[in-house]
């Protein structure tokens, strides 16, 4: 039964969904023009058409290189990416009208650059799909990737602030006009490394234990790696001044650890360590200041953004957060309609706060829809992890999908005031190349793994890749169930 269903590639469903997504993007563009120009110009559909062509290209690559890949992933991401470009285009239009400039061309300004970044990202994703026919190959480069990940993560911390600090968070590398957020790529590399490492260590980590209060705790000496990563995350928190990034790295590690070992004690240890660390950092920020001061400020702002002392202070004030919240509130349930809001009231509305700008215009209903699409992407990624047969694939897909979800939580939680604000990008939505490229690579990896998951054991593609060899390394082996 499952074999027969598995034979369906579902590529036409993907194409249909993709067309639907692009129609939504075109409709968004049309509404923007109606609100900005009081008329819908004849070429309103061009940005949606252009980006649609790019996605169609990737769709064709998927059709030939990963025919059994999950059909929902690509259209769902394409919709968010498309809305992002359309919203940036909307900002460019308002900017041009307000400053009495000529209407920018389709390849000009932020939205044009975002279109170019999308092209580059899709090329990278296509190359990954073309070159990487089997995701298990990645495990061969695990240590290299681990090193690369750590280096990428550390660069902004060690660079002088003038080259790495934006809005109080040191997350960037600034090379003239180009800014790169290496952390976005680091998380991909780190997930691969963690997956490889944990597949190798999972027996030890999951079997040897003390039992305390009904929960199995690992032996002291096995705590080494988790403590190392914890310390690392706190260093990130202190030196890159960013809670979100720290949370992201640490959450990523703890979750892969938990998935690998099936031990909830790791989660408990992880949560206690993380929140304990954060609280200590907060106290240190209050008393000692120095490198902890920034985090303390952000926590204070989070506790009461509307307080005059937080809103009116000279630096590190809550102006941005408050304006974002006021924008979201003004939008209310239905929003002002695309193109009819005042997104420029919110600083950084093109990048960190794009969700607030968008929320003013599409309202609670629109944001809820967007949230569901993100949820869909994450759950499809986790689904691929469930379905794929090898441990490494499970951990990579699970880790990547969870990281994506966590990143969405960290930034949206920050913007809505649920957690302290951090300088994360909103995946696929924010203007910026690093985030877009890294996240499209992530999606390509998920496509690849989902293809492996849904591919019937003996398809022509499988046979074409040569006779199946017995895995020589443990991480290539099929999952075996460990019962402690």
């Amino acid at each position, binding site marked *: 039964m499952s074999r027969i269903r598995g034979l369906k590639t579902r590529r036409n469903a993907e194409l249909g969904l993709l067309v639907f997504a692009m129609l939504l993007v075109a409709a968004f563009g049309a509404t923007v023009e109606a609100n900005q120009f*009081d008329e819908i110009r004849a070429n309103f559909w061009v940005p949606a058409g252009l980006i649609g062509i790019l996605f169609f290209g990737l769709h064709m690559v998927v059709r030939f290189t990963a025919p059994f890949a999950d059909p929902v992933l690509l259209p769902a991401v394409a919709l968010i990416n498309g809305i992002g470009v359309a919203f940036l285009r909307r900002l460019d239009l308002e900017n041009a009208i307000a400053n009495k400039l000529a209407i920018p061309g389709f390849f000009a300004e932020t939205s044009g650059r975002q279109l170019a970044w999308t092209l580059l990202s899709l090329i990278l994703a296509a190359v990954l799909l073309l070159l990487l026919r089997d995701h298990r190959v990645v495990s061969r480069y695990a240590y290299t990737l681990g090193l690369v990940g750590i280096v990428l993560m550390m660069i902004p911390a060690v660079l002088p602030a003038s080259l790495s600090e934006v809005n109080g968070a040191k997350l960037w590398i600034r090379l003239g006009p180009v800014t790169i957020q290496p952390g976005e790529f680091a998380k991909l590399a780190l997930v691969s490394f963690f997956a490889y490492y944990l597949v190798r260590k999972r027996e030890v980590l999951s079997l040897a234990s003390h039992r305390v209060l009904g929960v199995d705790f690992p032996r002291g000496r096995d705590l080494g790696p988790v403590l190392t990563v914890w310390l690392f995350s706190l260093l990130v928190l202190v030196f890159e001044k960013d809670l979100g990034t720290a949370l992201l790295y640490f959450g990523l590690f703890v*979750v892969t650890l*938990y*998935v*690998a070992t*099936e031990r909830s004690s790791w989660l408990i240890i992880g949560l206690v360590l993380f929140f304990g660390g954060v609280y200590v950092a907060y106290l240190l920020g209050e008393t000692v200041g120095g490198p902890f001061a920034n985090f303390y400020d952000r926590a204070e702002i989070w506790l009461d953004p*509307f307080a005059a002392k937080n*809103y009116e202070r000279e630096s590190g004030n809550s102006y941005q957060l*408050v*304006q974002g*919240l*006021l*924008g*979201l*509130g*003004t*939008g*209310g*349930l239905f929003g002002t309609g695309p193109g009819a*809001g*005042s997104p420029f*009231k919110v600083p950084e509305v093109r990048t960190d706060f794009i969700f607030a700008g968008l*929320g*003013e215009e599409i*309202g*609670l209903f629109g*944001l*809820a829809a967007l*949230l569901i699409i*993100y*949820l869909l992407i*994450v*759950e499809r990624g*986790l689904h691929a*992890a*469930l379905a794929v047969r090898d*441990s490494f694939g*499970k*951990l990579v897909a*699970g880790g990547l999908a*969870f990281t994506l*979800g*966590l990143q*969405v*939580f960290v930034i*949206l*939680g920050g913007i*809505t*005031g*649920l957690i302290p604000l951090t300088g994360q990008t909103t995946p696929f939505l924010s203007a910026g190349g690093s985030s877009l490229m890294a996240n499209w690579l992530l999606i390509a990896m998920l496509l690849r793994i989902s293809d492996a998951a849904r591919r019937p054991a003996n398809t022509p593609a499988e046979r074409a890749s040569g006779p199946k060899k017995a895995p020589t390394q443990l991480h290539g082996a099929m*999952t075996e169930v460990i019962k402690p």
Partner: protein
Amino acid sequence: MNAPLRRAGVVILVLFALIFGKLNWVQAYKADEYRNDARNKRVQIAEYERPRGVIQAAGGETVAQNTETEGELKYQRIYPKKEIYAPVLGYKPVNLSAVGVEQFENDILSGSSDKLFADRLSDMFTGDKTGGGNIVLSLIPRAQEVAWKQMTNNQRGVTKGAAVAIDPNTGAIQAMVSMPSYNPNPLASHDDKVAFEAYKKLDADKDQPLLNRAVANTLPPGSTFKVLISAAALENGYNVDSEIPAGGVYQEGGATIKNAEDEICPDSEVTLKTALTQSCNTGYAKLGVKLGRDVVIDTAKKWGFEDEALHVGDLEAADKGLPVAASRTGPIANEDGTVDKSALAQSSIGQRDVRMTPLQGALIAATVANNGTQMRPYLVQQQLDADRRTIYTANPKPLRQPTSSGVAEGLKEMMISVVENGTGKSAQISGFTVGGKTGTADTSEGANPHGWFIGFAYDEDGKAVSAVCVMLENVPGGHASGEAARIAGLIMKAAAGRGGD
């Protein structure tokens, strides 16, 4: 590994549910609060997208309008008459809260009123930004300007005071000025700093220019209160020619009542009419004590004292308008609640704890001129939509019936005598029949007294054209009420459409 993966999925689900919950909090529960937050410019930008309605005085003179700007807020509110109309109009600032007509007619002026639903509906289809509705006030420009000019250029150099003129037949406010006033234009500035600084300066001014003294300030009314004691007497068996006890000095408990001058009612008895004409303190103090505390307090209440709910604005809703401070008679009681006779004697001549707003003074005069019926005072004559179609016209209605037309007739006769033969001669208008009552209210030790005049005027045809109250605070140089009477006459003349040019 699948079980923890599923749980990880649940964790993400929970995290997203938290975000969704928080979004509901921000975009639904808190939405109104955020929308109206002073730090939220979005609503202001939308508000200033359409021109705010124009405010005009009777006859069409524009007193609040807009000019288009190049800035983010598209329309700048302008008050061409500055100080003259400010206490009534108030102002519509960008960030501070609006006051005056700008505040209580905001729903019409901004266009958000249900009455302008048709305009909003057509905007939705045409995409136009039709302006708000317009307001036509009952204020008569000539009367308003004469009042302002005469008050600010008074012959005694008084810096604080107020004047109100009412049409006795309708309750329409013909003039309302308060001195000192303020220029509302800086307060409506689009530059937050300019507006805030202007407000801070006005707010800190010890002369309280932001206070509308015509409605929001109560002072001892002095002898003008004798009109109400007269009303009480006429209702209790006296007539205008009844003899009442008087004399040069009247000692009641700890209070010594004297007359302003020795030649006023030195005899032991004097008629009621003469007592009012000359403003006989001893006579009225004795009369008040004889009538008793309850009669004095009840009469004052029937004429509008103790009314804490009165608003003067438009007649649609009783609470829509400038809030009017309650005038008071005070307790007139000892600590154990029994009648304090010395307090009663002093209260009967408008001293002690008696306090009155100028508006209340004008209402008393208007009631006399309107045969004992007090009309509800109002400022808004008409509301017009953006195309100047009338959507509301004031329909005068009685506020209360303080007394009978017979008593009113008696009071009228006595008050006319005051202006023709007595203390109020300065209020005379040639050709008109003017009645009124002066008042000089002693204030704290050493300070100059307040000068009052309340009165009414009938034109050549015998039609009541105006009732007025003028109050000057701390008038130096004696005869404080004479200047008030002179100004009152000029205001009434202007309200009747004469003079003032």
